[in-house]
């Protein structure tokens, strides 16, 4: 079975539970976001799914291979971009990549043209014979991404793939991720860059030791209604009035715009009445998606509570 199927996955280190009861699926061709604060268990989850750690409980099948019993086959199938690039500084970019080709027992002559395509795409082809120690942070990150793809993996785990990259390079990486997904690969993206998650992922799981939310991105953002209201003048003066409402909504302000987070559709008329009573001239009020950041922070707060 392709993709990833996770059922009741848990990992304990001694008596401490890093993650518990994780259950989710990731489909082939999907870019799936794995979100959570530092220490939430994202890395531990990825390590279990890449065969680096054995689960304490539960099971996961990655592209048909059990993480419990088929570690070697699993590692042939997955590509892992770790948080740190982890390159051999004295070796050249080509030597770094050749090493991983050898570890995967690839026919180097056959694999190199495909690898070279990625090097060209990331602007590294001309630097292939230079030691990695001389590379900038962004170049190291890009080379680490190429290394992740050296063996043409079916499932790719990317931990902060655009960390340290300039906007242009970050765009190149995001385009490459989308293209890899189009080719039918399964991609799991761990990132604190929620904008990037919004751009790339179709579904996300938010974890904090356990699964807090698992949903398509659009659904998650619609989970609570938001109202985008444009008022005349500076909107800040209406904040106290909104805060005094019985349901005390979260409000984001940008000049003459207010984004009011609601938990129920029925709150919308109360918000508008409150603003009018406070003297606001309301130009427009339209339903809006809640920003992923808002949803994320709320879920994390609830998770802690």
């Amino acid at each position, binding site marked *: 079975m392709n993709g990833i199927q996770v059922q009741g996955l848990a990992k304990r280190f001694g008596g401490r539970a890093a993650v518990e009861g994780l259950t989710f699926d990731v489909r082939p061709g999907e870019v799936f976001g794995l979100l959570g604060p530092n220490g939430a268990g994202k890395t531990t989850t990825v390590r279990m799914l890449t065969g*680096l750690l054995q689960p304490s409980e539960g099971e996961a099948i990655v592209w048909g291979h059990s993480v419990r019993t088929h570690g070697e086959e699993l590692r*042939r199938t997955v590509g892992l971009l770790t948080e740190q690039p982890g390159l051999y500084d004295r070796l050249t970019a080509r030597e770094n990549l050749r090493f991983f080709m050898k570890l995967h027992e690839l026919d180097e002559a056959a694999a190199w043209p495909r690898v070279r395509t990625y090097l060209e795409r990331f602007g590294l082809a001309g630097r292939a014979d230079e030691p990695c120690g001389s590379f900038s942070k962004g170049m190291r990150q890009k080379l680490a991404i190429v290394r992740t793809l050296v063996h043409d993996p079916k499932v790719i785990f990317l931990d902060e793939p655009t960390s340290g990259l300039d906007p242009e390079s970050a765009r190149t990486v995001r385009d490459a991720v989308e293209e890899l997904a189009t080719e039918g690969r399964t991609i799991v993206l761990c990132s604190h860059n929620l904008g990037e998650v919004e751009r790339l992922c179709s579904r996300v799981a938010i974890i904090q030791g356990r699964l807090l939310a698992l949903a398509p991105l659009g659904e998650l953002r619609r989970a609570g209604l938001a109202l985008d209201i444009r008022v005349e003048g500076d909107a800040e003066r209406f904040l106290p009035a909104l805060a005094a409402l019985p349901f005390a909504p979260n409000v984001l302000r940008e000049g003459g715009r207010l984004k009011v987070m609601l938990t129920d559709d029925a709150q919308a008329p109360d918000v508008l009445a409150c603003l009018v009573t406070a003297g606001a001239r309301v130009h427009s009020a339209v339903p809006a998606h809640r920003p992923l950041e808002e949803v994320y922070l709320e879920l994390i707060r609830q998770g802690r509570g």
Partner: protein
Amino acid sequence: MAFRPKRALAVFWKDFLDLRKNVGLLLSMGVLPLVFILVPIGVVWTYVQRPEDPNLRVIAHYYDKSLPLGANAALFLIERTLTDWFGMFLVMPVFVPILISSQSVAGEKERRTLEPLLASPVTAAELVAGKSLASLVPAVGISWLAFILFCIGIDVVAWPLVKGPLMPNALWTFGIFILAPLFAFFGNGVAVLISARVSEARTAQQLSALVVLPLVGLVGGQVAGWLTAGMGYYAIQGAVVLLLDGVLLVASIRLLDRERLISRWG
């Protein structure tokens, strides 16, 4: 899990390539053989310069009370030096792998290259084999090269007294081809084992280097006249080290287990 020689060779290829580009480490590896070659050559040269010095007879007598009056004390001391120094020479195949393996195993943690490496299909046994080979080949190679230079040096300086070649003799030939690889494996095993438990290459080197102390102690015992070295003596050392090599190999494979390394250092 099947052992795939190609993956072990890949680890060897990478570590050997990395070693070739590590000038600092190469220099450290070169200094030790120089000392082990030059010191005994200097001692033999001193004996050859003054073979009739009565003090040599006193020293020779200290080592062997039954030394006949007509025996050549300088020649006796040269042969004794060569026998005792072999114990010291064995420090080299132990020490060189310690320098290399500490860098290659603990260095993977320091450079944060361990996780990508362990995320590849390579097994613990292949990792141990590849890394061990990358430290054993240079260690044994350096020992053999040093042995050749040592033989040439000794024969050149001893020639005026001996009027013929002293080296290579049976003890050294046995030792350098049989014992040196066993001792190198021992040094490598200790370094891999310690490297798997500490976070820095330097700490691994310092702790691993302590294993040469018993060897130096044995040589000290020989020089002090408490121990008499010979073929049997070194053969026993070899048997003990062979046993330790087996234990270290099993322990290294267990300690380089993914779960253990990642839980601790990842």
